[in-house]
Structures are given as C-alpha cells and as structure tokens.
C-alpha cells in the first residue's frame, strides 16, 4: 500500500523533472497518478476527482508556468489544496448553555464509546465533577457496562436512567444533568448503519430530545470509499458540528478525513490516537495532508537533495561526457559521495517514502555498499581511476586486499561503473544527461529527486 503510493508520487516528481515548465501535456499523466495516490489513501473517488480537477486548474495557471521548479510547485499545489480542504481553525468544543450536550454518532465499532470517555477526560480536566456520561446503547451486549467501566476509570459520573428506551434514557439523563448542575453531558449512542431507517429515526429522536451543542460523527481512520455515503446521511439527519477521526495511531492514510470534510463541510475536530483515554489529540490539517499523500515532507526533501547534489560538479561531468570522454572512476566516486552526503539512502528514504525501495534494490546500492565501493576506489592508483581498462587480475587482487575486500567486489564495482559510463554516453547523445545525473548511479533517471530547472 505504502509502497505503491510512494512509487506513484515518486513518478509524479520524477516525470516533471528536467522539464521547463508545467504544460497541459506533461501534467495530464501525472494528474492521473495523483488521483490514484489519493484513491490508495482511501479518499473517496468523487472527492479525489474533484480535488484533482482543482489542482489541475491551479497547476496550469500562471503561478506555476512562471516557476522554475515545476515538480516542487506541483507537489506543493496538491499539498496546499489538501490543507485548504481540511483546514481552517479547529475550534474547541463549545456549549451554549448548561449543561452543554455532546452527542456521539457513527457506524458500528467506529470508537464512539471510547471517544465519549476520552471527551469526558478532556472536558473534565480541570474539574471531574463538571462532566457526566450516559449510554443510550441498549443493543450491543454490555455496551452500557463498557461506558460505565470507562467512567469509573476516569472517576467521572455515568448516569444510568432506569429505562430501555434510548430516547427516554437521553431525556432523563439531560434532566438529571441539568438538575445537578453539570457543565457537560456526553451522550453515547449505539453504532448504526446509515441505511438502517429505523435506527436512523431513533438517533434523530435522541438528537431532538437533547438538542446537542456538539454532534460529532465518529469515524474510523481506516474507513474506505463508503464513508462518504454514511457521513452524508448522518449529516442530513443530524446537522453534525464536527467529526472525530479514530484509530489514527495505525498506518492508515486516513483519506476519509478529506472525504468527510468535503461532503459534510464540518471540520475534523479531534484525532483518536490510541485505546487509552488520554489518546485524543487536536486535529492538525497540515499533518493530515502529508499523511494522506504519504510523502512525509516532500518539499523539504526536494530542497535537501538540491542542496546536497553539487550542481556545478554535475554539470562539469556532463560537459566532459558530452565532449566524448568516458566517465572515470574518479567521477563515479564523486557520485557515490554525493549520495552519502545526503545522509545516505536510508536517511533519504526516511524523509520521503517516495523513493521506492524497489528502485534502490535495483540500483543495487545501500549505504554499506557505498562506503565499501569508495574504499575500493581509494585503494586504486590515480592511473587506474582514470583508465580502468588497465586493471587486470593481479591489480584486482591488490585493490581488493587494500580495501579489505574481494576480487568479486572489485569486479562488481567495475561492471557498475562501466554500465553507468555507457548509459551516460548514450544519454549525452539523447540529451537527457542532466536527468541521469540527478538519478545518481545505477540508473533510475530522475527518481531520487527533482533536478531540472
């Protein structure tokens, strides 16, 4: 999942590498990749389509055409668009009167009961006696015991009206809360499907009975395409004031946050990040945007790569090969060092899950190997570095021994160098040399970062 999304985004950046500007033509294909990436993050299809259309419109605008860094700008537009949709200031839970009523609704197993307790913890931080809880879930076995147990863990009062009618329970709980002067009443409800007419009518009655200040749609961060449908129906019936995204402590991309926001217009207010009752966090749109795109800090990475790769060096090398001279092992060593100076490939991958692990394996490089290869090159004479063809069997043994390595390793290095030299020559003729250099050793042109201008 992770990987294919990253792959796509790498392609997105890669495809725009080395081209002058964003044109309708080169963007169309990348736009599809972005759409796929959003879908893999579980953003609902109609929402993804609409978003990509807006991105495309902006990308084709002047703002970008004038830019020198199309890849970077493009990624940033997508990111900005996500932040815009998700964004706005997130207001704290607010009450009009006393008690303020918070109603939690959603599908089965989304995390309503747990979240009810977490919100009690949040609102009762200064004073436990200000908040009380009530469960209207008469269906799920032991649902009311569950909330009562959680309330006890928090030392918060759980009201238990003596009734088996959810609406009556809610009504009575509100009367008690008002009478006893509670600041907040948090109402948990049974999980229900949006297509269950009877239960939707029931929750609408509970809503009318308690007239909530906050009606929160509790939704699983792992939710799929259908979440837009349930969110829409719940919103139509209840006028939601916000959503809570639960189970965000896992590795789900959480595209549902975007979908829910798009179809209901209500903000995501809180993030559930664990089973413990203090695992409730404010929602941060920027963080969520990066998470949905699964690209860590792409913009930051692009900058890192640009800083690390010495462009003068690259251009000198390019010029040299263009003049028809072969790439020396000295040049090869420089390339290896550049990769190292970026904090190694591992560090790079960390920053951007956008460098596909597969590509690295293909290029056959890891950090240890790079250090190893540099050691081998250092163990050669300057003449050997300039002209590797003189390296025969006995020289190989000497080089290997000098680097504490094997003849096979020397062979591998020479072969890799030869392949690269050949590819570069071909690329020089085809005019794509800069891109190749940006890709570093082992091919995969343009994959490692944006180098075009």
């Amino acid at each position, binding site marked *: 999942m992770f990987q294919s999304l990253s792959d796509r985004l790498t392609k997105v950046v890669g495809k725009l590498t080395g081209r002058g500007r964003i044109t309708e033509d080169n963007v169309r294909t990348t736009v599809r990749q972005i759409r796929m990436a959003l879908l893999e993050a579980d953003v609902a299809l109609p929402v993804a389509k609409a978003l990509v259309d807006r991105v495309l419109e902006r990308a084709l605008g002047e703002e970008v055409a004038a830019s020198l860094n199309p890849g970077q700008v493009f990624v940033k537009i997508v990111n900005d668009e996500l932040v815009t949709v998700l964004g706005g200031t997130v207001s704290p839970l607010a009450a009009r009167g006393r008690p303020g009523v918070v109603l939690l609704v959603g599908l089965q*197993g989304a995390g309503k009961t747990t979240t009810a307790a977490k919100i009690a913890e949040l609102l009762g931080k200064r004073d436990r006696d200000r908040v009380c809880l009530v469960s209207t879930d008469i269906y799920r076995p032991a649902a009311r015991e569950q909330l009562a147990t959680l309330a006890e863990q928090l030392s918060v009062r759980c009201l238990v009206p003596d009734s088996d009618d959810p609406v009556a329970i809610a009504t009575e709980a509100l009367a008690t809360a008002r009478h006893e002067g509670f600041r907040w009443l948090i109402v948990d409800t049974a999980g229900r499907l949006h297509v269950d007419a009877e239960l939707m009518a029931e929750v609408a009655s509970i809503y009318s009975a308690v007239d909530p200040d906050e009606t929160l749609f509790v939704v699983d961060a792992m939710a799929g395409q259908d979440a837009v449908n349930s969110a829409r129906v719940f919103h139509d019936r209840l006028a939601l004031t916000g959503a809570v995204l639960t189970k965000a402590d896992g590795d789900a991309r959480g595209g549902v946050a975007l979908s829910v926001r798009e179809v209901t217009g209500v903000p995501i207010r809180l993030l559930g990040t664990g089973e413990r009752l203090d695992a409730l966090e404010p929602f941060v749109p920027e963080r969520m945007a990066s998470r949905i795109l699964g690209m860590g800090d792409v913009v930051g990475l692009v900058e890192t790569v640009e800083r690390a790769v010495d462009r003068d060096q690259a251009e000198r090398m390019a010029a040299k090969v263009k003049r028809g001279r072969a790439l020396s092992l000295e040049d090869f060593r420089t390339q290896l060092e550049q990769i190292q100076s970026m904090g190694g490939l591992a560090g790079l991958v960390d920053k951007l899950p956008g460098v596909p692990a597969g590509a690295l394996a293909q290029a056959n490089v890891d950090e240890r190997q790079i250090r190893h290869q540099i050691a081998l090159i250092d163990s050669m004479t300057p003449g050997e570095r300039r002209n590797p063809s003189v390296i025969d069997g006995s020289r190989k043994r000497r080089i290997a021994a000098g680097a504490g390595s094997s003849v096979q390793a020397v062979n591998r290095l020479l072969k890799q160098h030869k392949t690269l030299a050949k590819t570069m020559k071909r690329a020089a003729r085809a005019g794509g040399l800069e891109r190749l250099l940006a890709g570093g050793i082992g091919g995969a042109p343009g994959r490692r970062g944006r180098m075009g201008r």
Partner: protein
Amino acid sequence: MAGTSLIGRLRASLAKGRDLLTGDIFRTGGSWDAAALDELESRLLLADVGVDATEWLIERLKRSRTDERSASAQLVDLVTELLETVEQPIDVRADAKPFVVLVVGVNGTGKTTTIGKLAARWSAAGHSLLLAAGDTYRAAAIEQLSAWGDRTGSIVAAQSSGADPAAVVFDALSTAARRGTDIVIADTAGRLHTADNLMDELKKIKRVIGRFDAAAPHETLLVIDASQGQNALAQAAEFDRALGVTGLVITKLDGTAKGGILLAIARQQRIPVRFVAVGESADDLLSFEARAFAQALVGAEPA
C-alpha cells in the same frame, strides 16, 4: 439462515444503497466501449477494490475475448474466478479435540460478535463450545462475550480484567479438555497491526495454544471490516506474517460498503475466506461464496 441465500441478502442490502446495473454494456467493433470500461473501473474503485486490483481486472477484461455477454457479466466472471481461489469453507475436524479457533483483528471489526455467531452456528450443528475471554483489556469485553455465551448456550472461560490473555486461553483449553468440549473459540483484544508489542502478545497466545496441542490453533481467523478501505490489505499482510492466518471473515456487509479489498487480499495473500457477516444478530453469518460476492460487488444481475 434458512431460505435466504447469500446473494439474496447481499443484494437486498445492496439495493438499499445503490442502483443495480440496468443498462447492458456491449462490446462494439472489437473493443470495449471506453465509457463502459470507465464505469466499471469506477464501480470497482468505489467498492474499495483498490487501484492495483482494479487495473489488473480491467486489463484482463480488455484482453478477454468477444462474446455475447455484457462487460459487467464478464467482469463478474473474472472476479468470481479470482475469488474462487479463496472460497474454501472451514473444516471443523472431529479428530481435533478440542478444535481450537483463535480470532484476531484490528479494533472494532467485529471479532467478539463473530464469535457469538460462530458459537450459534456450531452449537446448532450439535457441537459443544467453550468461549475463551482472551480480551482482558477493553472495558466490558468479558461481559460482552459472556452475553454471547448466554445467548448461544456456550460456556465462557474468563478471568478478571487485566489478566494475562495467554493464561486465560491456556486455562480455557484445560477446562475444555477436561469437559470433552468439541470447539474452543478464543477472543482477543482488538489491536492495530502496527503495534509490535501487541502483535507479540498474540504470538505468545498462539505459542501457548501450540504447547497445549501442537496442531492448534487449528484455525487462526482474521476479522476484516468491509467498511474499511485499503488498510485492510496491510492488516492481512501483517497479521499473517505474525501468526499465519488460515481464514478470513469479512463483516458489516449489510451496509453499502462492498468489501472489495478482499480482491486485493485474494490476489496477494490467498488466505481462504470462510464467512461473511451481514448484521448484528446470531444468524447473520453466511458461508462465503465467490460468485455471490462477485455479483454483489460488481452490482450486476445474477446470471
């Protein structure tokens, strides 16, 4: 269960949410109508099939030979073909005594409810059952399982909240052996597959079961929630890597979510799918049928 087929019930729930395909999409002039393919692609994506499996299916459909049937009918065949590789009912072996089922999954997918349904199904088939309350973490999880024990006439082996789940399960197995119980189903606390310590806890439970009977657990059942999207693929991969999952249950198919991620899982993990769950009552558990699932998913009329 009697009288209601899987396809009937899936279609009934499907009809609540979305229109069935009415228009027929034919092949014109030797190639598929692009609009038709787009429509099918959207339908697969909306069913949570995911980009990879969708692209794969559409590619295969494009390459398929012309015949008289609509694209959607042929797509149903393709999906059926894929799912038939994982259509494999659970075999409750009589020689395994007790037959041990370990139920796992991320939080809130429906593990405990599914255990209740399995208990109902298997006790109706004449087996004696014992349910092990291996979720000692979540509030009132033991009470929830006990309620299902009462409903289905199964014994529940439980310790106090906070007890070591492996110890609970081991004691349950001893009790079952002493009483000559046919089937033991062990509930476990929901956990995200990314929580290493909790995954280790599951491995320990499995090891302890294996110490009791080297062939056990005879079934390690992963419960997947149909309303979830692409993350279910990671769940299947990680739970399988940690425990060796032998069967899947996909729950909450009574909503409008289609559980299309099953196709991606079938392609990548090839774990047998045992049951689909279509509601919260004891009899809302159906044996998995590839074709019925495919039809409900693609949204086509049954052939």
